């Protein structure tokens, strides 16, 4: 928990985590010194998806927790929990959560469109993962921040 807190900067909104077959729980990107690729440099397909979704808006870090199991026993059913402390009020709320899994056949795995009535950002589901890869949870707020 403390590493996460130390990592978060103010007003940042995106988070990437590396899922390995023995998964570490929610890795802050700067805490990792090794991995298959640098998540800062998404592969071409992911870059295309990010551009399509967010244009040239900078994707900032922080405010998002992406939890996945310590051990992904079955790659067909991997629990994912996305939480955020960002507000869900009528004038400022998270309107979209995009789940992107690099190297999955369709990396833009899911989108969750929300309204203030949802009350908080705490979404969980189960996804399929083929291999060690980056999992990104990117939130978009009602005022266009990403």
């Amino acid at each position, binding site marked *: 928990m403390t590493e996460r807190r130390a990592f978060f900067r103010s007003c940042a909104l995106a988070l990437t985590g590396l899922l390995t077959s023995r998964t570490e729980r929610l890795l802050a990107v700067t805490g990792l010194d090794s991995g298959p690729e640098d998540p800062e440099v998404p592969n071409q397909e992911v870059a295309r998806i990010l551009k399509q979704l967010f244009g040239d808006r900078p994707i900032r870090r922080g405010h998002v927790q992406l939890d996945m199991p310590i051990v992904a026993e079955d790659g067909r059913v991997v629990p994912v929990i996305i939480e955020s402390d960002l507000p869900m009020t009528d004038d400022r709320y998270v309107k979209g959560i995009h789940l992107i899994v690099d190297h*999955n056949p369709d990396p833009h*795995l899911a989108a969750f469109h929300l309204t203030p009535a*949802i009350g908080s950002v705490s979404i969980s589901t189960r996804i399929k993962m083929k291999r060690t890869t980056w999992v990104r949870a990117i939130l978009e707020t009602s005022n266009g921040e990403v």
Partner: protein
Amino acid sequence: MINDIGEARIRVPDQIRRGDLITVNAIVSHPMDTGFFRTAEGDPIPAYFIKDVVVTYGNQEVARFEWTSGISRDPVVSFTLKADKEAPLTMVWSDNKGASFKQSVNISFISA
């Protein structure tokens, strides 16, 4: 055990007070086939998955999810909801073959 495609269940807490932030758990039975697999005979199994979920509370759409076949078989989802009115909570799951599955629960309050 849910067996038939489209059988869905929505769970909300038993006791809800007006204004509570509740957690909603929902599951629908569906193969969520990716289209990348073949049968033992080699015939392709076509992509067959839930692609849209619409959540309605009373007469208001409160959430909408877009899924791909990357979501696991018999997809579960959980999310929160501000229980500010006594009204039905309805979910409609639609798949890529045009079928829709609907389930509803009533949100009602215990007197605090």
